[in-house]
């Protein structure tokens, strides 16, 4: 893979294209961008038919060992790799270790092993087993095995240091096996930068990982909930300073729009797209505005939207801790949507918004209907992908500040109704 950057802001965000992806090297992925999040190869709730109502899907599909490791024997019998097994045609497969949505129970990592949790329970992985899995899954790209269990508060310095050391050792061992494995020739490996919340360890991990012949870097242990935003940004900035400019940086476990914006400014290129799934699972629809095209007519329409939606979403930072709903979404179970016949988001081209209304989604959620998940997943994915498109456009046009203001609603806040 090759990262072609068209813009680099000093010590900060980059805009470009990751090329040469996949076995044939024919795929590419624009950065900043996100991967397509799947569980066992399926975008949650979606069959291929419903999935492909979405346009501009990322060319890279993310698989996780959390949802695949338990099928190792089946895949070994199948002999033809996960792509064929799951009926995934033209897409690049990226295999990560953990599912970003389900936190792992702590305390099961050893010097030589990490664990993932499948539907049948814990599966312990040595590097040998990890690499055997990669051999049978046959991804186009994978992250090396890593110890990232530093997200709990009060993780000791000693523990953090161990996570860095172990992760480097695992990387070296993975690379050794990788080069001896026929089925993995041409497959890209990402090193994983650890270091918890300790700056020195983060820098050490970055420096050391950068010495290895990897195609790019995963930044681990920084997921939403592990530390506050300011520290995360500080650490990411320090890490990316140590990483080569020409190799991509993938941040794991972070997906909220405000966090994405901040992390892009700190030098992150790629994200996992699990956030739309989380929003879907709580019966919510992403609706935050990221349209900054100058258009006076739009400005009037938006002022009306603002008035209408005032009070619908929470203020930034004012998280409803009961269901972790963010200010970027609306809760369609709310009674106010019972007779709201507008689409989820005016102007959204997704299947859900082209065909259905808030009132219908409200009904589906209230009656616990399966179709709610399908329609919300389609909309939330479309909205999220469009956000990344707007982000890239803003970087190209040098209007990132405007985008930030719009997404973070610094300017608008909550307008008062004229009534």
């Amino acid at each position, binding site marked *: 893979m090759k990262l072609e950057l068209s813009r680099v802001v000093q010590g900060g965000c980059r805009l470009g294209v990751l090329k040469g992806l996949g076995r044939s090297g024919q795929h590419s992925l624009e950065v900043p961008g996100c991967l397509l999040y799947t569980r066992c*190869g399926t975008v949650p709730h979606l069959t291929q038919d419903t999935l492909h109502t979405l346009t501009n899907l990322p060319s890279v599909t993310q698989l996780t060992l959390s949802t695949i490791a338990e099928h190792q*024997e089946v895949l070994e019998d*199948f002999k033809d790799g996960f792509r064929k097994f*799951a009926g995934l045609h033209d897409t690049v497969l990226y295999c990560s270790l953990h599912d970003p949505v389900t936190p792992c129970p702590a305390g099961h990592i050893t010097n030589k092993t990490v664990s993932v949790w499948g539907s049948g329970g814990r599966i312990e992985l040595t590097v040998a087993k990890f690499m055997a899995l990669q051999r049978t899954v046959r991804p186009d790209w994978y992250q090396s095995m890593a110890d990232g269990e530093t997200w709990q508060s009060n993780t000791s310095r000693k523990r953090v240091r161990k996570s860095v050391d172990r992760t480097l050792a695992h990387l070296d061992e993975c690379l050794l096996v990788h080069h001896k494995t026929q089925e993995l020739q041409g497959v890209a490996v990402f090193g994983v930068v650890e270091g918890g919340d300790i700056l020195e360890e983060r820098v050490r991990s970055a420096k050391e990982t950068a010495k290895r012949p990897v195609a790019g870097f995963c930044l681990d242990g920084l997921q939403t909930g592990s530390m506050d935003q300011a520290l995360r940004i500080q650490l990411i900035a320090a890490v990316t300073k140590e990483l080569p400019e020409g190799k991509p940086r993938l941040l794991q476990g972070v997906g909220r729009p405000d966090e994405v914006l901040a992390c892009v400014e700190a030098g992150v290129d790629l994200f996992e797209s699990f956030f739309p799934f989380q929003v879907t699972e709580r019966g919510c629809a992403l609706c935050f505005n990221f349209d900054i095209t100058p258009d006076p007519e739009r400005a009037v329409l938006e002022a009306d939207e603002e008035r209408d939606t005032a009070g619908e979403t929470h203020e930034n930072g004012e998280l409803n801790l009961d269901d972790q709903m963010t200010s970027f979404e609306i809760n369609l179970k709310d009674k106010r949507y019972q007779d709201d016949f507008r689409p989820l988001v005016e102007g959204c081209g997704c299947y859900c918004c082209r*065909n259905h209304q808030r*009132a219908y989604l409200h*009904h*589906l959620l209230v*009656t616990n209907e*399966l179709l709610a998940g399908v329609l919300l997943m389609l909309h939330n994915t479309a909205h999220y992908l469009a956000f990344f498109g707007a982000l890239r456009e803003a970087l190209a046009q040098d209007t990132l500040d405007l985008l930030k203001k719009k997404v973070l609603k610094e300017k608008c806040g909550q307008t008062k109704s004229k009534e």
Partner: protein
Amino acid sequence: SSGASNISPLTLRIVAECPVTKARACDLVLPHCTVNTPVFMPVGTQGTLKGITVDQLESLGCQICLGNTYHLGMRPGPELIEKANGLHGFMKWKNNLLTDSGGFQMVSLVELSEVTEEGVKFKSPYDGKEILLSPEKSISIQNSLGSDIMMQLDDVVSSTVTGPRVEEAMHRSIRWLDRCIAANKNPDKQNLFAIIQGGLNAELRKICLEEMTQRDVPGFAIGGLSGGEEKDDFWRMVTLSTDHLPREKPRYLMGVGYAVDLVVCVALGCDMFDCVFPTRTARFGSALVPWGSLQVKQKQYAKDFQPIDPDCQCPTCKRHSRAYLHALFKTDTAAMHHVTVHNIAYQLTLMRSVRQSIVEGRFPEFIRTFMKRMFPSSEQYPGWAVDALASVNITLD
């Protein structure tokens, strides 16, 4: 009389009749599109087919599906659905909709329901309020839903009940039919079907048939069956009913959906069928196939890399294997949707094949081939099916 000058919202064109059995192949012209019969109608209880978009349903060739008056009448309610341009507008379904009356749910789902001449009284499960579902109320809700075919409110009695209650219910259903006809605000757009009752009593059925066929309704349903009665009694009531129903009006056998039942009852003269079974069983991982069913969640399929049915052309079978679905069932709801799509495809394809064989004059041959495929040996043919088919001149080897 009514409908003197306007175009009827239902026209039945008989395309072919089987010279051996009582089967027919028809074109049922309804307001939203023409339905080819015999037809299986999937059930979308709450304004959605569970987990399937209307586009997916349309792609499978579905021309008519069901909605439930009881459920939709409770949530979101008829006023809201009217605001949304009827159930078609609410769920964005372009083809036809049939709504039942809510009568069956009254009896099967709701505790402490009380039937009087007025209607069915029950307590709302959502707010405990007492509600009366009368013929007028049922039709009013169905008028708001705007379905192409509405069912009369009938006095539903389980097919395992015997005694005077059955007769009482049959007569009341006739009276309620008249009240439903009178209450229909949209006779030029919405078709009201009568439902023949009478339990498993031939005499009562005949009285009901005699009476109801005197009413000017565009179609008839055969009700009160498919509720746990003996199959030997079931088929006899079906064939008795079709013997006394007018040829030029559609016959809808309610609650029937198992493949064998469908094929036999087509032979007995039925045109339309509905059942929750194919879609419900899909969500449990049971895939319908010409030789029975396949429980994809079972261990034996973990390494089975064939599709559910190698001959099936549905989106699921064209792309996925039993092994993948087996794995996916442990992780994501999409596994259910894949099997639901397949099962609907199976049902619709079966009916299409049945129809084609009637049109081409080879329905008896079709039946024999179907039965051979479905059962490992002729010893295993269900006795009732053998008898029922014999009654319409089909002998199975």
